[in-house]
């Protein structure tokens, strides 16, 4: 741990009052930032200064700050969740930046993720996709014993890999087509790997894909950028699974 102090940083950030108005970039200087500070703490410090100066602080989404809730969503220096791999924005630390650097921060950009204010976007589209079929249709109670459905170790692990998705939207933000395929495929593939989920697998794949298309996400062209920028390393192999499940369902129709 060798803490350093960064000076003369320039934070170039997208400011937009609300969904109706046009936004623009503003640049704010900031000094005296420890390299042990997290990126969001740096924004906290900047906001504190802005409030003291009587200006509007920068609005951005964040909550758990330990990389699991999926709330934080910043496009930093041209990359979703910034210049570090396998992490969310809240786990990004200032040691990844240098003195005098200009740091460009933009909101997720997609038609289906409209900007609410500044860096905050509306990801309700993801909710709608999951509501259309991202579940196993069981009610509370009346289910068999947990060990009554044996599930192989590998299947459980593969399902868990897909289920690690935190729904942050980095895949959509990164994809040059704003496609939500990685997100949808993670859910479809998580449930398709488990016997509980297979019962309604066909229905799920069809309705989730239809909802995704309806909501204006782009198409997957298999660039693979989503899996690289995914903070949880969800693999695009899941997209192949989704494609397979979808084709199977469509052929059966």
């Amino acid at each position: 741990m060798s803490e350093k102090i960064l000076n003369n940083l320039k934070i170039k950030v997208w400011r937009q009052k609300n969904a109706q108005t046009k936004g623009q970039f503003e640049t704010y200087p900031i000094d005296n930032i420890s390299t042990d500070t997290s990126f969001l703490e740096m924004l906290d410090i900047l906001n504190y200064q802005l409030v003291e100066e009587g200006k509007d602080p920068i609005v951005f989404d964040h909550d758990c700050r330990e990389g699991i809730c999926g709330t934080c969503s910043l496009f930093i220096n041209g990359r979703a969740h910034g210049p570090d791999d396998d992490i969310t924005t809240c786990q990004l630390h200032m040691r990844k930046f240098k003195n005098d650097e200009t740091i460009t921060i933009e909101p997720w950009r997609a038609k289906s993720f409209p900007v609410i204010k500044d860096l905050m976007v509306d990801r309700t589209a993801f909710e709608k996709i999951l509501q259309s079929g991202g579940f196993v249709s069981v009610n509370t109670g009346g289910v068999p014993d947990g060990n009554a459905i044996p599930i192989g170790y590998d299947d459980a692990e593969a399902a868990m890999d897909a289920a690690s998705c935190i729904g942050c939207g980095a895949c959509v933000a990164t994809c040059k087509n704003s496609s939500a395929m990685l997100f949808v495929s993670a859910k479809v593939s998580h449930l398709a790997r488990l016997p509980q989920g297979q019962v309604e697998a066909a229905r799920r794949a069809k309705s989730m894909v239809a909802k995704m298309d309806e909501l204006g996400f782009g198409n997957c062209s298999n660039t693979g950028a989503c899996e690289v920028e995914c903070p949880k390393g969800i693999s695009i192999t899941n997209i192949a699974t989704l494609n397979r499940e979808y084709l199977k369902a469509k052929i059966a129709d």
Partner: protein
Amino acid sequence: MSLTGFFLMSFLIVHLTVNLLLIFDDTGVLFNQAAHFMVSNPIIKVVEPVLAIGFILHMIYAGILTINNMVARPVGYKKVNQKQASTWASRNMFVLGSLIVIFLILHIMNFYWKLKVEQSVALIMVDGAEMHDTYTLVSSLFKASLIYNLFYIAGAIFLGIHLTHGFWSAFQTIGWSGNIWRKRIEVVGKVFAFLIALGFSIIPLYFIIKF
């Protein structure tokens, strides 16, 4: 994209196989016979319009998808840094495809047009059968102009790059990929793309070097 892609890739294999005969027999007999077989074979007669439709569908679909995808992000990023996240080819399939289309138009004008529309290609007798002297048509073009040779090499390279992504992508889209198969298909795809680019480049190169 995937299904038409598969179809077009299988066409490429046939096309390349026939073309390579150009360099194995300078008299042109083999190539002429093969070309004649291709035009006289009833199966090919059926496949030909299908092939045209395949190309057109591939292009139309590419156009629709590209427009859709552009609409899906009405406001772009000021700064994008995707070098580490995806390959250039995968991000630029439409650009590569468009370049290939330009090549294709010239390619058709050079050969297919002359053969089928202008009917300006001489007839010769080979082994008692009358056929177009396609060998002369092709070889004279390559012998005549270095520009053409370079143009064809460029076309082959664009096609190869297009395939570095296209081959694997086609399998991914139909769901034929998994943790193990993905790597295999990616490797096979790269090899396939390289062979296609090399194969189609060798022919003009051969004519540059030899004549």
